């Protein structure tokens, strides 16, 4: 089983990944509260980036509404906790199916009626927006007033109820990101993975090669949505408050997709690298501007945008394929 998972991974790749993992495991021991918060954000985006990448990077399905699955996961688990005292891990058992079903519904509508490309993207935005407006009026989740979880003291970590120190969330997200990386690699190298790539490359040719395009697109959406909803559950229990206006907002969906795009669409490590680059960039800009005493509203966003533009112009395939060649990890395309 383990040999199977490692099959085709070069020794060098393994060493580098191992080193990175050790650094990340040790990080909370040295990082201050602020840096830890930043690292949590990075892992959060790395994880969701991987989930989104399954749809866009593997199967070629552009979703601009992934905030929907984050929000559904967050709201489902949080509401079950607030109303019935159901712990987040049991809540997850409801959150994942809810998000996957939503994904399946959107997928069914789109693929059944051959809604593709930008039209599919618009459909995903539409459903995220439905949810944003809908949850504003949903009494069960306290509508626009927001759903609040009882805030715990950081006296001790209650992993079962996800009440505790940020370091606990950090390790959960680190585990999730690691598992997602392994899972994505396994998927990509499986029969399903090959069919996804074929569909991404040329849907009509894939169909003629015997691939049931509808089915494999549905699988991509369902897996991606379900995976994403886990991040939502963590989001809810980390921030302890949920507002439809924030959770389902299209900006959340855009944030999600920037990492994988900058890191490298369809690559396994790209979403992780992209999360480090983007969150790192954002934090560096804040620090630099603070140090310079620049206090003009919007300056940070302008610089952020310019940097993004430069990266994407210079490396349209993403940073990871370029970096991979630079550090001598010419892993064969799966």
């Amino acid at each position, binding site marked *: 089983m383990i040999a199977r998972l490692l099959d085709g991974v070069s020794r060098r790749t393994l060493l580098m990944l191992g080193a990175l993992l050790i650094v990340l495991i040790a990080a909370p021991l040295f990082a201050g509260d602020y840096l830890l918060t930043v690292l949590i954000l990075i892992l959060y985006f790395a994880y969701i980036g991987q989930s989104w990448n399954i749809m866009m990077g593997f199967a070629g399905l552009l979703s601009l509404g992934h905030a929907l699955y984050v929000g559904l996961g967050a709201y489902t688990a949080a509401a079950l906790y607030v109303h019935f005292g159901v712990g987040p891990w049991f809540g997850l058992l409801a959150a994942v199916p809810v998000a996957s079903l939503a994904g399946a519904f959107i997928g069914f509508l789109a693929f059944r009626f051959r809604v593709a490309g930008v039209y599919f993207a618009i459909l995903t935005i539409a459903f995220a927006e439905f949810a944003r407006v809908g949850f504003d009026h949903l009494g069960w989740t306290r509508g626009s007033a927001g759903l609040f979880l009882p805030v715990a003291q950081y006296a001790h970590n209650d992993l079962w109820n996800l009440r505790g120190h940020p370091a606990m969330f950090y390790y959960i997200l680190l585990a999730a990101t690691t598992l997602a990386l392994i899972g994505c690699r396994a998927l990509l190298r499986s029969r399903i993975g090959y069919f996804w790539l074929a569909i991404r490359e040329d849907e009509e040719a894939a169909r003629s*090669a015997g691939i049931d395009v509808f089915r494999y697109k549905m699988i991509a959406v369902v897996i991606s949505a379900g995976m994403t909803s886990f991040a939502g559950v963590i989001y809810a229990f980390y921030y302890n408050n949920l507002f439809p206006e924030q959770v389902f907002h299209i900006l959340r969906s855009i944030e999600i997709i920037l990492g994988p795009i900058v890191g490298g669409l369809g690559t396994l490590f790209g979403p992780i690298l992209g999360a480090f680059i983007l969150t790192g960039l954002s934090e560096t800009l804040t620090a630099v501007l603070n140090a310079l005493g620049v206090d003009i509203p919007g300056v940070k966003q302008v610089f952020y945008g310019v940097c993004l533009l430069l990266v994407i112009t210079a490396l349209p395939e993403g940073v990871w394929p370029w970096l991979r060649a630079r550090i001598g990890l010419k892993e064969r395309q799966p």
Partner: protein
Amino acid sequence: MSALLSVKGVSKRFRGLVAVDRVSFDVEKGGVFAVIGPNGAGKTTLFNMIAGMFPPDAGSIAFDGDRIDELPPDRVCRRGIGRTFQIVRPFPGLSVEDNAVVGALMHRYSVDDARARAHEVLRRLDLYDKREQRASSLTLPDRKRLEVARALATDPKLLLLDEVMAGLRPTETDRMVAILQSLNRDTGLTILLIEHVMRAVMALASHILVLHHGAAIAEGRPEQVVRDRAVIDSYLGVEAIDA
């Protein structure tokens, strides 16, 4: 008689235009059947109906004893009909090998088995040495052979080839002909091809159907068909006989 593919009275019209007009023919198991005719004769439309891209307006298509004219392309492929496209469509971002692996996974659940099959097919089509290249970096003759490889990797009983010789130089054409001949001879694969290159048709086909304005105007053995008056007038021209 054991017809692998049986097309009966098939018609297709696009708005006012009758693209295929009541065409019937049988493809015998193990044969190489060529469909020829001038541009716009309805050859590709006929092909697309067999491959399931769209259903015929009238008539029926049976493969291996079962009706297939209502099936979508992926189901047709799984029944055992592999096809190529007139304008080649390999998966551009994938390696040559992975293009073939995708095809081979049709009837295989293990990627390793599919890879072994892909290697076998790529060797046959002289692409094995290029297996690590991206499909988008291949030359046209290579891409044409890759299309055949991908279709072949699905283990078809019938291979549909839509102008695989078009755009090839004579030496490349001969190479493709030799590959197809050996496939047909060694594995008993039945081939149905649309072709303009008469040199290839004459070398390969055991049977020819000539379409003109959507209708079949001649059918038979190659040497009969090329001497048919109607065929010479509408398509080949007099000089082709001596070619």
